[in-house]
Every structure is written in C-alpha cells, then in structure tokens.
C-alpha cells in the first residue's frame, strides 16, 4: 500500500472519531454537518498542533536562545536533555491514547475486512499515529537549527534533529508494544500470579513513560561516581557519549571535533536504524494482537458474596474506574503523571550538602507534587470519560443523575491523588518532623476534587447514551489547567513562598469544595 493511500484511510478513521464525538450531543448529525465539523476539527487540530510545537520550542529553545555566552553550553546540554525527555513523553502519551482508541473502537478489525495485508494495516496505524503528531515532528528540525546556530556548530544540527526522531520512533514503538502486551494480558485474572503479572505490565507502562527522565536523573547522580572512576583510571574514555539517551546530549560537544562528529553521526544513525526496526516489530505485534484478540480466560468459581457493598453511586463509579485504571493504564495515565515531578528532584535530594538543604528540598519536592497533581486533576475526568464512550447506556439505564456521574469521575481522580499524596507527605513530614505537609496533602485532595469536578461537570452535561467518544481541545485543556491553577492557590501559594498558613489553606480548600459541590447539585440534573 502506498503512503498516500494509508494517509487517506487514516483521515477516514479520524472522521469516524469526530462523528463519535458529536453524535451523542447532536442526533441530527447529517453528512453536510459532519463535513463541516470534520473541516473545523482538522483546522483546530492543526492549530493545536502548532500551539504544542510553539509550547515545546519555548520550553527547550528559548533557554538556548536567551542564554549568555558563558553559560551557553551548560544551558544547551540541559535544554537538550529536556528536549529528549519531552519528545519521548509527549509522543508516548499521544500515541498511547491513539493506539488505545483504535483498538477500542474496533477500527482495525473493520480494516481487516478490506483486501489489505497486515503490513498495509500496520502502515495505516502508523499513518494515523503520525497524523496526530504532525506539527510536533517539526520540533527536532527547528531545535536542531537553534542549537547549531547558537553554538556556531552546523554539524550539531543533524545530530540533534536525528536524535529527536530516535526519541519519536522509540516512543511510538513503546506505546504500541505496551498496548499489545496490555491487551494480551486481558484474559488472565485468577490468582496471585496473574495479579502480579498485570501489576508488572501496568508498572512497565509507567516506567516506559518516565524512562528517559529517570535515566537522565541517574546520569546526573552518577557524575560523582564517574569522577571517582576516572580519577582511579585516568585513561578511561567516556563512553556515555555513545550510550542512548546520554549520547543525544553529549553529541553536541563531541561534534566540535571531526572525529567526534563522525563517530557521533555513526552512533546516531545506528540508533535511528535500530529504532526503525524496533518500531516495525512493535507495529506488527500491535496489528496481530488487535486482529487476533486476547486468549480465552481461565474458568473460575461461581458468584460469591462480595466483600464490599455500597449503594453510593458516585463511589461505585469511582471504584470501577480505579480498577480499570490499574488494569489498563492507558485509560488514565494522567492520574499518575504528577509523580514525574518527583524524578526531577532526585539529584537535588541526593546532592544536598547539609540537613537544612535536604529539608528544603524535601519540602519543595512534596509541595511540587501536591501542586502539580492539583493542576493536572482537571484533565483526568476527560480520560476517564473517554473510556466510557459507547458504554454510557449501562449507566444511563440505571437511575443515575449526571451530577452523580460527574462526582464519580472526580472521586476517582481525588482518590488516586490521595493514594500518592499522603504517603509522600507522610514520609516528608516524618523526615522534617513537621506535620504541615500532611495538612497540605489534605488541602490538595480537596482541591483536586474541586478542580476535577468542574471538568467532569462540563463533560457530563454533554454526555448521552449515543456518545461514543469525548473530545477536549487544546484550548479547553489549557483553560481548565489555568482554572485548576487558580483554584489551587491554597497549595501553590505556600509553594511559591507566599504565606504558609495551613489553617487558611485548609479552610479555603474546604470552602471551594463546598461551592463546587453545590454548583454540581444545582446545575446538573438527570
């Protein structure tokens, strides 16, 4: 199959998603209206893609452009590390979501009915994923040009750009491989062994998401160890310049020398070829799993009395969502994304010079985690509702209010937040001998519930039995994040050093929560 044909089919699949998004709220959706919506959504998608491109470039390119000459190299190295991490994580997240929705919607099984081979279907899947990433794929070229121009090293351009594409290809491969693995695990449920196997694959998913960040942090921490080794063996060459992902940053300084540039280029091309091969294998596995389905499960015992029973509908929905989140992390990875902020503090924690500095870093680590969790909590209900698409008939055929649906989604978000916020806060509080952090965790949980409820109310108000998918635009996401940030002032204020009144923080958080609960009750009927 030609790439043009694959892209054409990918455009068709996108149209399906748009139809599924609007069908529920507009049953009179006809072909002319759909065509207009498709055009509008495509234009919006392109605008959002370029907004993401600008955002990424601001985060990684701006520091390099604005750096002074004496700190240029250090800034460029740090920005390039961030560039590699962001490219990997953003592509992994976006492609995981697309891969899951392709599988869940059954689009691949529909394609199987056409006279297409598995390679052709794989090409369509890749075309679909790349279309959703399109403008972001320009980041490596633009950032490479920025680095080359600023450092007066034109030979750095191909290295930086190519490593960016290595990150993209590996992230695509990781998301597809993990999607296949998670789907294959679907049939296994009985016993401790199967539970451990499921926990392993779910953990692997998150580890993959944080992997490059973790590796870089370990690399920064290993500086002292490497120095000791180099001191003992002076002639020991540095090999990190050729080990991915460290080579992606070290190649910049190496490119200043002809031999260094040549070796770095060879290394980069080798990683690029390897990543293409890995991606091809991952696509093959993904298509095979999607077409063949999961294996038949082990049979088990009959129905027994449940250990836990409640008639609280929002709590039931929350428990159901958390179970699904644990078993299929692709449905709700934003819930645990704030934990990534912990990774960035590892070097600071390990390199703290004294007890006082350690206390400060521990405090900052915990408050950053709490604050990030609150800010991102507005996006979690969107992911949870995305998974409900097509299954809302189950909920609406019972006596469920929309406000209970919204509350259920926000409870799931808040419970997940509390599950990581309190242990971290308790550990830091014990280390600091200060219970303020536990109080802030309580405040953060209430704020998380507030922000996620605002978002869930918006989603629930437009949901109907016929809604197949939910769409939230980048602009809406940014607005929700800004709203969450404003609501989270009781946490963000102390983080920024603007007053540390714990009682005030708790009081304001409780007040915000009561107001939003009242709003939910008043505004959302059945």
């Amino acid at each position, binding site marked *: 199959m030609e790439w043009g044909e694959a892209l054409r089919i990918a455009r068709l699949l996108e149209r399906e998603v748009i139809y599924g998004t609007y069908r529920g709220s507009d049953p009179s959706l*006809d072909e002319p209206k759909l065509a207009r919506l498709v055009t509008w959504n495509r234009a919006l998608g392109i605008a959002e893609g370029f907004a993401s491109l600008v955002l990424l470039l601001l985060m990684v390119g701006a520091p390099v452009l604005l750096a002074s000459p004496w700190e240029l190299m250090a800034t460029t190295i740090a920005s390039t590390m961030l560039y590699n991490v962001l490219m990997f994580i953003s592509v992994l997240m976006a492609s995981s979501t697309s891969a899951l929705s392709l599988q869940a919607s059954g689009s691949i099984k529909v394609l199987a009915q056409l006279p297409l081979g598995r390679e052709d279907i794989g090409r369509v899947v890749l075309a679909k994923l790349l279309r959703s990433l399109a403008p972001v794929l320009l980041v490596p070229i633009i950032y490479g040009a920025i680095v080359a121009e600023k450092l007066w090293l034109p030979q750095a351009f191909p290295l930086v750009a190519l490593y960016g594409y290595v990150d993209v290809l590996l992230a695509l491969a990781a998301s597809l491989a993990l999607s296949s693995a998670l789907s294959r695990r679907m*049939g296994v449920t009985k016993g401790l062994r199967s539970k451990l196997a499921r926990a392993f694959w779910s953990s692997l998913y998150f580890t993959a998401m944080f992997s490059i960040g973790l590796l870089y942090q370990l690399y920064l921490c290993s500086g002292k160890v490497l120095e000791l080794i180099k001191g003992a063996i002076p002639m020991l060459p540095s090999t990190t310049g050729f080990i991915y992902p460290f080579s992606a940053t070290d190649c910049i300084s190496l490119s200043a020398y002809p031999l260094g540039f040549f070796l770095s280029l060879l290394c980069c091309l080798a990683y690029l070829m390897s990543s293409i091969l890995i991606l091809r294998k991952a696509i093959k596995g993904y298509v095979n799993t999607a077409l063949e389905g999961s294996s038949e499960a082990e*049979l088990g015992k009959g129905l027994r009395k449940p250990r836990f029973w409640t008639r609280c509908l929002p709590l039931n929905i929350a428990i*159901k969502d958390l179970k699904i989140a644990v078993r299929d992390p692709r449905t709700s990875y934003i819930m645990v994304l704030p934990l990534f902020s912990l990774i960035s503090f590892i070097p600071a924690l390990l390199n703290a010079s004294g007890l006082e500095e350690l206390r400060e870093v521990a405090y900052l680590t915990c408050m950053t985690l709490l604050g990030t969790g609150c800010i991102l909590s507005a996006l979690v209900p969107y992911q949870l509702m995305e998974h409900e698409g097509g299954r809302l008939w189950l909920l609406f055929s019972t*006596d469920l209010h929309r406000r209970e649906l919204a509350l259920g989604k926000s409870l799931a978000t808040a419970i997940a937040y509390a599950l990581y916020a309190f242990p971290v806060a308790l550990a830091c509080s014990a280390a600091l001998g200060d219970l303020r952090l536990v109080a802030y965790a309580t405040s953060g949980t209430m704020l998380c519930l507030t922000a996620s409820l605002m978002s869930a109310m918006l989603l629930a108000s437009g949901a109907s039995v016929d809604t197949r998918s939910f769409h939230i635009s980048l602009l809406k996401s940014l607005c929700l994040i800004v709203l969450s940030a404003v609501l989270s002032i009781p946490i963000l204020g102390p983080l920024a050093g603007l007053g540390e009144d714990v009682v005030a923080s708790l009081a304001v958080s409780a007040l915000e929560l009561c107001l939003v609960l009242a709003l939910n009750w008043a505004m959302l009927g059945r």
Partner: protein
Amino acid sequence: MGELVELHGVVKKFGRVAALRGVSLCLRRGEVVGLLGPNASGKTTLLKIIMGFIRPDRGEVRVLGRDPYLDPSIRARVGYVPEDVLLYDSLTVREFLYFMGRMRKMDPSTYIDRARLLATLFEIEDKMDCLVGSLSKGDRQKLALISALLHEPDVLILDEPLASLDLVAARVLKEVLREIRSRGGGVIISTHILSLAEAICDRIYLMNEGLIVAEGDLRSIKEVVGADEDLEEVLLKLTKKDEVLEALIRILKEEF
C-alpha cells in the same frame, strides 16, 4: 389498570429526517409486544424514547404512568439492552455484575441470589473470573441480558436480543420473557427474527418509515394481506418491499 407503556402521536425528527411521524403504541400488563420493521423504520428511536434517552418533538410518552424523559427515576423499574452491547472489558464478569447490582441499589443478598440464578440459566456461572473483554460476543450479550434482568424489572426493553445468542440461550430468553409476562410485567422487543415474534409476541407493531403500518396479534395482521401468507410475506407486503425484492432478485439472476 393502567398500561405499562403508552405512546400517543409521538413525532421525532433529526434535522430533516423524520425518524417517527406520529407513533402510538401501548404495552399492557402481562404482554409481550414485538416491534418489527425494516432497517431505518424508527424502531431503535422509539425504544430510546420509551427509555427517556431522547425527548420526542411532539406527542406523549408514559412509562408506568410517568414521563421517562422528565422523570428518569422510572428506569429503576425498567430493564434495557441496546442492539450494540459495549461493556467494561477490563472488569471480570463477577465485578461487572457486582457493579450493576450496586448501581441498581439492590440489597446484596437479594442481588447475589438473582445473579447466581441468571448466570446459571444463561450458562456463564463458570466464567465469573473471566475479563469481560475476553468473552465471546454471545456471552457478552448474555451478560448484558443478565444486567437488565437483575432487578426484576416491570418493563423490559430489548433491541435485537437474540443476536449472537446460541440455541439454548435463545430458548432460555424466550422462557424468561414468558415468565415476566406471567407475573404481570411487560416486554417490548425489537427484532428481525420473525420466528421469535411468532413464538412469543402477543401483539406485533409493524413499523415502516417512521409509522406504524399494522398492529395487532399475528392472526389479525395476516388477515389484512391474506390468510395463507407467512409473516415474512406479510411484512414485505405491508412495507411495500415485496416489489422491491422482486426487482432485486431479477437483477441478481441477470447480472450476478
């Protein structure tokens, strides 16, 4: 005694498409009513209006004496299974049934006995630890039916219930429907399977292009077009598809 379900002059348009053009229907206690008709005749829209998912543009709808759109609490006494059954693939069968029982606010001991009975009747009692996503299409359909029957509804609304069911399950379903009827409940089934309509339905509503073109018991409908016709021929004649079918068969013979 009031009807379980009453519709009077219901009209529903989606843009320029008139899905329902003045439909009146009733379901009495102890009755199974069949809704038959070709594709796009308005059957699914009608069922969604009865469930209160969609508001009609005109007309009156009453389920157990109440408007289902304005008072969705009535769904606590109604069971519903749509044509496209999507369930929570990541939950086990047991967890899914627990979840539906809790959502129905049932007492756990009542619920467990009921779920156990239905799981045995539909032969999935040994699949409690299976993830829903690993079940066959037929088993998922059975699970959806169980979830609709758990709370012993007074009214059961089924859209193409026999799709994907095996012979035994189909037979069990027919017996379940007879049981509901004998207890004074009511069932509305939308189906293409004429043998089901003939075997179980007390009355049939025949729909075509958003209108009821015939209603009554099977004998009276057959008398409209000719006493010797089977139900398939009756349907084709009343929906004026018999001439269309003849033309299509001619094309098939000449050009296929």
